[in-house]
């Protein structure tokens, strides 16, 4: 049985059209500056290259920049300046700073924003929510179709280990650039999309290399109020083209303030804790002997979840020092008609930002009546149940610890299920497969 929900997708690019309009455009050159073969040759964009921190322990980079009193880092400046430039050029659908926003009184500090212009008054489209892994579909909207004016800069690792900036660098298709683009329906000032290896048209799913890129971005920006987020399919991602989101909000997020209980430390120094006294159950990853260790631990957990069809959201906070992983089941409940109409009427789709405590509301009534109770109630619906979360948690740990014990072991073990995508070329074994799981069903998970 296929599970579907109807929702009006958020417009993130001025070139994102309805399905019908996209199809009509398919034939022939596009006649404007997009990022496809027709327009890439000769295209130029600013390029920011960051220094890889191979041997530097995860916390070192941050000790330089993590304070809100440290001077504004260059990447921060670049991003904000480019964003403001696009604001003044009128590329956004509305001025997000003209939207009223507040911290809801209470101990959690949920944030609410009244944004009537974000959601379109259009026909809702159907989204399949029971498949976290779906193949890329070139006919649908993807980020190679955005206009180059919506791209702020290319973002990649530097060749020679130094931070560099090139105001006008050619876009070299062969080097598989990653880019940062604006979200034309911003949730907050500076709302951007990080699109790893954009020309490779990767579907929305985590791989080690892309996640590491996102982590580097958090570190380079050096601003604890610049956070990155990821939504898997089934957890309210609307576009099946690999992307992370990010924006600035200089207040603490409720999820960051939630108490945590340490659960375990992996062999490579990554500390995993569990949230408690928070409406959504989730894990927090910190530490690690190196940055790669932290990045891989989270990536591997995500890869496990996506391979096992569990929708999830990820929040990268505190300049990349704290990463929250939240499996969720709201879309499934919605598809099965289990969500109250009262909650559905608010039209809040609980993606990573909402789960972290930042709600964008489209109706004045919801904004005026926003309370900690309401927010809590909505988010509680998103969370996996305690039982289910315990199951998933245990499996994630197995998945993460398998990676380490198998570093020397070159055996590729066949997992259950033939519809899994091929291995990434990362050189390590995807341990999720070693647990003989029955994939595809969410109701029962067979443990070996």
């Amino acid at each position, binding site marked *: 049985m296929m599970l579907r929900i109807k929702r009006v997708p958020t417009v993130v690019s001025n070139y994102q059209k309805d399905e019908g309009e996209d199809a009509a455009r398919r034939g022939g050159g596009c006649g404007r500056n997009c990022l496809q073969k027709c327009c890439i040759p000769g295209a130029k964009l600013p390029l920011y290259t960051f220094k890889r921190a191979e041997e530097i322990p995860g916390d070192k980079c941050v000790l330089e920049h993590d304070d*809100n009193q440290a001077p*504004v880092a260059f990447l921060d400046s670049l991003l904000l300046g480019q964003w403001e430039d696009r604001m003044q050029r009128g590329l956004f659908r509305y001025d997000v700073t003209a939207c009223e*926003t507040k911290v809801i009184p209470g101990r959690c500090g949920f944030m609410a924003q009244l944004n009537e212009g974000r959601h379109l008054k259009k026909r809702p489209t159907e989204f399949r929510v029971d498949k976290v892994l779906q193949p890329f579909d070139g006919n649908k909207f993807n980020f190679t179709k955005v206009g180059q004016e919506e791209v702020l800069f290319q973002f990649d690792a530097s060749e020679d280990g130094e931070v560099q900036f090139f105001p006008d660098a050619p876009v070299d298709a062969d080097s598989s650039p990653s880019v940062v683009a604006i979200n034309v329906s911003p949730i907050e000032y*500076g709302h951007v999309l990080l699109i790893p290896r954009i020309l490779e048209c990767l579907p929305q799913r985590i791989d080690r290399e892309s996640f590491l890129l996102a982590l580097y971005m958090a570190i380079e920006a050096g601003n604890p109020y610049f956070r990155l987020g990821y939504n898997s399919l089934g957890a309210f991602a609307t576009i099946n083209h690999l992307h992370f989101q990010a924006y600035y909000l200089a207040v603490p997020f409720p999820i960051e303030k939630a*108490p945590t209980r340490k659960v375990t430390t992996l062999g490579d120094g990554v500390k995993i804790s569990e949230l408690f006294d928070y409406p959504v159950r989730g894990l927090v990853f910190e530490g690690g002997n190196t940055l790669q260790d932290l990045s891989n631990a989270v990536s591997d957990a995500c890869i496990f979840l996506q391979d096992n069809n569990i929708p999830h959201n990820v929040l990268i906070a505190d300049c990349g020092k704290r990463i929250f992983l939240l499996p969720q089941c709201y879309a499934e409940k919605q598809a099965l008609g289990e969500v109250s109409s009262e909650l559905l009427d608010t039209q809040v789709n609980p993606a990573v930002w909402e789960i972290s405590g930042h709600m964008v509301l489209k109706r004045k009534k919801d904004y005026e009546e926003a309370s900690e109770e309401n927010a809590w109630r909505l988010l509680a619906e998103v969370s996996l149940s305690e039982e289910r979360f315990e199951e998933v948690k245990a499996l994630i740990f197995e998945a993460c610890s398998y990676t380490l014990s198998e570093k020397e072991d070159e055996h590729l073990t066949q997992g259950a299920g033939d519809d899994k995508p091929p291995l990434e070329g990362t050189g390590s074994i995807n341990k999720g497969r070693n647990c003989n799981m029955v994939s595809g069903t969410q109701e029962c998970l067979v443990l070996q």
Partner: protein
Amino acid sequence: MEPPQLGLIEQSFNSRYSNWAREALDELPDNFTITDPCISGHPIVFASRGFLKMSGYSRDQVVGRNGRMFQGPNTCRRSVMEIREAIREERGVEISLLNYRKDGTPFWMLFRMAPVFGKDEGRVIHFVAVQVPILRRRQRRRNGEGLCGEILSNSCRREVCSSSSVELAGVSAADSDCRALEIEEKCEASDTEKQLAATAISNVLSVLTHYSESTGRLVCEKRFGPSLVSSSLHISLGRIKQSFVLVDPHLPDIPIVYASDAFLRMTGYARNEVLGQNCRFLTGVDTDPSALHQIKQSIQAQQACSVRILHYRKDKSSFWNLLHISPVRNATGKIAYFVGVQIEEGSVDRHGLSPEMRQLSVVGSIKVAVRSSSMSYSIH
């Protein structure tokens, strides 16, 4: 990041408190630091003898630096966040924190911080932070049992103490290296230690209050009257290294309510000479009136604009100012300020950013700062 000039640090202290204040503070046995959130980098401006002894650093190594220098890999990030937020919200905080001495050894201490308000400004001018080392107790760990009863009953973070011990027993039963575990766990302060912290804070605050009277620039423990630009906004704005001013269009004659250090350096004025003034003091005989008119019109139309205008420094020398002005809204969605970002024609940016891009990045940083700092109901 280079530490701010010693001159600024000295002035932070000397302009507020009489000379005897340092002596009086030096007589206190407690460990404490005094920091100035209005100086870029929020540096320490005073460190007590006790503090220097506890941390193993000399005065020169500490004054001018930010408190994060004492943090290290095992310092709890969430605790650091709590302190950061308390600073931003101009309130006190008390929390156990793991710090590192100069020789690299970690130690737990009870960190208690309190704001000091300037009576005239109505905003925080200093933070006083007291550090009470938490003495290590014999911690026996048995399956199912909590930590030493004393800690458990005094802990206000009961969930951490009681549950972490159970988890630890389960996860690393083989790990008998108690010292490593102790560092990782949250270490709670005893009632005595908390009392010491409270007394210390009180001692320092009374010295500061007393010795501020003779300078005429009184300080107090509670905010007095509304503040024009909150100190949390001050801190955010302090991170921006370029020249800019914030003006308030709602006040008569649209005065400057904030001026960056770089602006003061560029124009040669002191801060108290520009705050409260309209920007027209920058104009002179050869300033083009049509440029002024353009600025006025943009402000009225609530729009951004860029002009090239001839401005004059305090010493009467002139310079071409590539001025960019933009409205800045706060959390209500309405315009709260206008920002003016100045770039001296011909100056070069080391990163290769064009003047326009540099200015826009300042505008962006300010928009984020103003919007975010006005979101919390507690700030108003």
